[in-house]
């Protein structure tokens, strides 16, 4: 039988999809996260008890008094467990997945009900989706959608879609054939037959499907916690990882409350929306008579109740919202400027301790830090795909070897911060005569022939099975039981309490050695190899993008006393309070933060890296990378940061940034400049003249100036494709140019982004459709497409800007040499144009090579820019 390489094919397919269809996944991700963010924002906004009240009113309306009271009690309980935010996250996730599932499931179900062929085709696909173990697509979902909500939504969707399709199909097929025939006999069109007869009669079944979709979605949402969706699933995942039964059951109960609520509400909604159900319910009520527990208000009253509560909730959200959230970080220590950093961790104690240590340190340094728990595999995947920034719990080279092999080329090892780990088998100390691995021989019967293992995917397990047992001739005698770390620890706890013999797979450092009296079995033959170091591993490029943090992480070291002390503190504080524990511990270790994350002081010009912020605009990319190349030849170090205009000006003003080469002054960025000009220095113009304009393709005849646009709105669909809203050019266009030419009634300026505008231009240009875009000169689009810059006869866009270099006010004194060079710098249109197109042709990510190539053709440039 030849081996069919199905796995390889799947791998190839996944790679191909990643390479070629990532736009589709990006699009889906945008849709999913957009919907999710929207719903989540709505659910998170109101005060918990108010929202609980809204839920209760809905239950009151749909099911009656008792249901309303129980609902309020249930949700208040969730709030008291401090799981409210997580519960709402999960609820949003489930709602989004359900909505999307229904959008797909109902039409597919209808289609399947009408065509046996489609039905036959769809059924195996549904079987596949429903039974394929979730792990199999959960982890790849990260590859396509990154960690977080979208991956979770996709996994939930795959799992929960099937009943939606099945029940819709069943519901429609169940409708009495004679009724459908009757409809047809009276001349009903197929569409009306569907809408007026089949769907209304199928509705109870379809609603049962909706109910199933939600229930499955909820159960999946818990599993999806593994891919960092957060919410209750994240809590469950975290609790299980730490063998914290208490937290686990709290999250579990919260999920159950959500489930029961959603189940009862959707089934009640089912009877409410279907005409038959309404009648049955009404009949039941009349026979039952009026009772207070089943009293239900009329819909109007319920709606009014919900609206009132929602308004109150909205009001509270506005007035009581953000106070006291972000604590201000002292100026000089605010290195991060609110920059977001995401740390991933595996719930091993060393990982938890170091992660929360860094979370605290980085937050003190002004970063916004997000710590997410993963399994090892997903964590490496999300680091490799750039969804998380770094982890501090990489056990290398042995334990995480397989992950490193797979993803190592997409990761940067920032070095080991702890290097005395070991892997071992351990027995309780009451096992008197077993002290080394060799002692295990011949004693299998004592242990039932079992060695309690951990996850079969762990490197330690592979090593144990393939090497260690063989080295001591134990492989025949003992069976290694694949399990999980929590299960192993639970088994250890059980055996220890009863003083049963047990041998477990363990490692150091581990808190089990504190909690239990255990013996690490000696390894005289060295079969376990030398111990792993605990490394900090970052996604590729993180350290370059965040040189300061990179430097800190590279210098990170903890000794055993520090680590175990911190772990003990965290264990003492209990789960959910890790960061408080870290703060307490840091108080006991004054000065450690400054040691681990030193704030740079001003030094000689070339010693201190120059922080250059750049906008993702072509001329800025060109000039910034040009300066980077040239200055590095002169011994400077440049940290490049891509940022938006606003943050750049604030960053420059505060001194966290040093330079920006792309200041369009005096007009385009006037408002930013005016706000901070006291703390900024203008290092002069290096390019002129520039202009702002609206451009149309040259195939659009008869449009040469803004006046020509008048009355032609229909041609352009009434739209001018804009760039980022709030930029000077957009404001100028909306507030001055369009009104000035009387075009403001006729045209809408579409807020978007520069890439979106360029994409739209490209699309329209390819189809020769009329389009008007917001553009500026210099821009490479003018060399790529035949475009007409519209004439601004009234000069409403103002005089042309010049492109200048701006810096923090102290820059000239800190960098006198550099200041002199920059002031003398100038570029011609031809030089800039050729450099931009060179960079364009090399493609994104290869800017440095492009600049190097361009410099070879312009050898005089280095000397001109930095005369010695």
């Amino acid at each position: 039988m030849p081996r069919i390489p199905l796995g390889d094919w799947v791998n190839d397919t996944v790679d191909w999809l990643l390479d070629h269809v990532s736009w589709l996944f990006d699009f889906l991700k945008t849709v999913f996260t957009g919907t999710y963010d929207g719903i989540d924002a709505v659910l998170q906004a109101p005060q918990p008890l108010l929202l609980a009240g809204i839920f209760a009113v809905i239950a009151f309306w749909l099911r009656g008094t008792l249901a309303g009271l129980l609902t309020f009690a249930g949700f208040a309980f969730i709030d008291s467990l401090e799981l409210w935010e997580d519960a709402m996250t999960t609820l949003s996730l489930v709602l989004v997945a359900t909505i999307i599932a229904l959008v797909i499931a109902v039409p597919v179900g209808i289609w399947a009900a009408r065509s046996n062929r489609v039905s036959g085709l769809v059924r195996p696909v549904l079987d596949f989706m429903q039974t394929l173990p979730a792990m199999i697509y959960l982890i790849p979902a990260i590859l396509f959608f990154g960690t977080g909500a979208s991956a979770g939504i996709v996994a939930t969707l795959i799992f929960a879609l099937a009943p939606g399709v099945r029940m819709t199909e069943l519901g429609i097929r169940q409708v009495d054939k004679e009724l459908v025939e009757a409809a047809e006999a009276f001349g009903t069109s197929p569409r009306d037959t569907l809408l007026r007869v089949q769907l209304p009669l199928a509705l109870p079944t379809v609603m049962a499907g909706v109910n199933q979709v939600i229930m499955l979605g909820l159960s999946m949402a818990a599993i999806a916690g593994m891919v960092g969706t957060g919410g209750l699933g994240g809590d469950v995942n975290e609790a299980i990882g730490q063998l914290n039964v208490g937290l686990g059951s709290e999250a579990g109960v919260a999920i159950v409350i959500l489930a029961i609520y959603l189940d009862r509400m959707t089934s009640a909604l089912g009877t409410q929306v279907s005409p038959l159900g309404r009648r049955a319910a009404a009949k039941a009520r009349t026979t039952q008579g009026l009772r207070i527990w089943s009293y239900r208000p009329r819909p109007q009253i319920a709606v009014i109740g919900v609206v009132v509560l929602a308004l109150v909730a909205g009001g509270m959200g506005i007035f009581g919202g953000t106070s006291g959230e972000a604590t201000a970080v002292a100026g000089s220590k605010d290195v991060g400027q609110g920059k977001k950093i995401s740390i991933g961790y595996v719930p091993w104690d060393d990982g938890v301790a170091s992660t929360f240590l860094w979370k605290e340190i980085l937050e003190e340094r002004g970063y916004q830090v997000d710590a997410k728990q993963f399994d090892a595999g997903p964590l490496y995947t999300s680091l490799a795909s750039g969804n998380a920034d770094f982890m501090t719990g990489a056990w290398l080279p042995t334990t995480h070897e397989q992950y490193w092999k797979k993803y190592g080329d997409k990761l940067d090892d920032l070095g080991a911060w702890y290097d005395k780990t070991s892997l071992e088998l351990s027995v309780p100390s009451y096992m008197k005569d077993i002290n080394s691995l060799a002692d295990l021989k011949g004693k299998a019967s004592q242990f039932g022939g079992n060695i309690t293992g951990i996850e079969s995917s762990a490197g330690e397990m592979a090593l144990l099975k393939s090497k260690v047992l063989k080295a001591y001739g134990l492989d025949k005698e003992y069976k290694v039981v694949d399990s999980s770390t929590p299960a192993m620890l639970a088994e250890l706890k059980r055996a220890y309490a009863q003083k049963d013999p047990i041998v477990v797979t363990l490692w150091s450092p581990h808190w089990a050695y504190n909690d239990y009296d255990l013996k690490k079995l000696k390894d005289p033959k060295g079969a376990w190899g030398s111990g792993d170091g605990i490394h900090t591993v970052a996604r590729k490029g993180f350290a370059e993008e965040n040189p300061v943090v990179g430097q800190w992480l590279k210098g990170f070291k903890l000794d055993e006393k520090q680590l175990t002390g911190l772990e003990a503190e965290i264990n003492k504080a209990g789960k959910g309070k890790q960061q408080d524990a870290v703060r307490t511990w840091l108080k006991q270790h004054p000065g450690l933060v400054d040691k681990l994350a030193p704030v740079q002081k001003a030094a000689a010009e070339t010693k201190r890296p120059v922080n250059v912020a750049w906008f993702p605009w072509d001329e800025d990319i060109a000039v910034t990378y040009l300066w980077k190349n040239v200055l590095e030849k002169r011994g400077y170090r440049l940290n490049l940061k891509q940022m938006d205009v606003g943050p750049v000006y604030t960053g420059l003003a505060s001194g966290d940034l040093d330079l920006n080469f792309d200041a369009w002054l005096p007009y385009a960025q006037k408002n930013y400049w005016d706000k901070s000009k006291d703390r900024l220095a203008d290092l002069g113009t290096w390019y002129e003249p520039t202009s702002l304009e609206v451009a149309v393709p040259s195939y659009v005849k008869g449009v040469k100036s803004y006046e020509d646009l008048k009355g032609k709105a229909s041609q352009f669909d009434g739209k001018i494709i804009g760039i980022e809203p709030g930029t000077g050019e957009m404001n100028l266009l909306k507030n001055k140019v369009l009104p000035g030419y009387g075009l403001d009634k006729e045209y809408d300026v579409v807020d978007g982004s520069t890439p979106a505008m360029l994409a739209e231009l490209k699309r329209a240009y390819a189809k020769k459709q009329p389009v008007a875009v917001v553009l500026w000169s210099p821009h490479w689009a003018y060399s790529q497409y035949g475009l007409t810059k519209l004439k601004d006869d009234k000069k409403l866009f103002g005089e042309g800007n010049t492109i200048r270099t701006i810096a923090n006010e102290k820059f000239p004194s800190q960098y006198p040499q550099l200041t002199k060079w920059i002031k003398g710098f100038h570029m011609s249109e031809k030089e800039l144009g050729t450099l931009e197109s060179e960079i364009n042709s090399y493609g994104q990510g290869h800017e440095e090579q492009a600049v190097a190539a361009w410099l070879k053709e312009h050898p005089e440039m280095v000397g001109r820019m930095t005369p010695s």
Partner: protein
Amino acid sequence: MSSRLEAEQLYKVFGRRPGEAVERLREGADREGLRAEGTTAAVIDASFTVEPGQIFVVMGLSGSGKSTLLRMLNGLLEPTAGHVRFDGQDLTALSDRELRAVRAKKISMVFQHFALFPHRSVLENAAYGLAVQGVAKAERIERATEALELCGLKGWEKSWPDELSGGMQQRVGLARALATDADLLLMDESFSALDPLIRRDMQDQLLQLQQTLKKTIVFITHDLNEAMRLGDRIAVMRDGRIVQIGSAEDILVRPADDYVASFTKDVDRSRVLTASAVMDTDVRGDEADCGCASDCETATPDTPFTELCAMSARSTHPVAVLDEHRKLVGVVPQQRLLGFLGDAEVAHA
């Protein structure tokens, strides 16, 4: 063309290559042979015409193809071969959309299991056809209410179908069909699911309505008694073919073959037969020729069998049957009456 409805050599074959099967049937292949190959000939070479105002009953056992035949008449099923002409218009040549328009306005249907929409009230059900036609709401309600009243359901408009008895439900079905003012009513075993007593009521009501409304009706049934009661003309189907078309008496007195004859054995002849069917026509001449002018009981050709029996009992003479000109057209001796009541064969002899 004066016929309201004309079926011309209709075939309906289910299964693979139906066209080929029709050719073979035309060449004389039999139904069993085709069935062995997996194709089912449901209707074979059915031709008939229905005149305006007539009740045309198609009778046959289950599986004889009568329901399939009915569904070809309004295009719910497309004939494999042949034509259906309705008021001279060939329905088989119409597009789906045109066909739907015909069904909405001119042909309506009453179903065996009523087929009322459970999610609509009685009034909404009755108004359904009008809603499909796009009639304005006020008019819709008015006409549906009228139709319900006609069918004896005044006051039940706001009820729901499942609150009504079977007979009442079928009245709603009938009202729904009548409300559209369609010229042609197709009734598919419409009374079969009802209790015998209620079935009789419904039959009576249908006949009564028919007297004033004069619709053209094609009625499907497996019950010969019902066929005889309702049908102006009756088509008997067997194994997909129409084996005989004729009046109730034709079927009863002159069955086309043994199958039809065996079918009619159990029929309550006294209800169906009239003097014209049982009289002995050998005796001809004036009323005076009888020679017993004063004593004779006289009847017309339409006098029902039961009345003849009563007359015969009052006199020893045969009953004389006179036409509208009081010409003697036949006599009915007592033994002949008894013969018809007993065994049909004796009567023929």
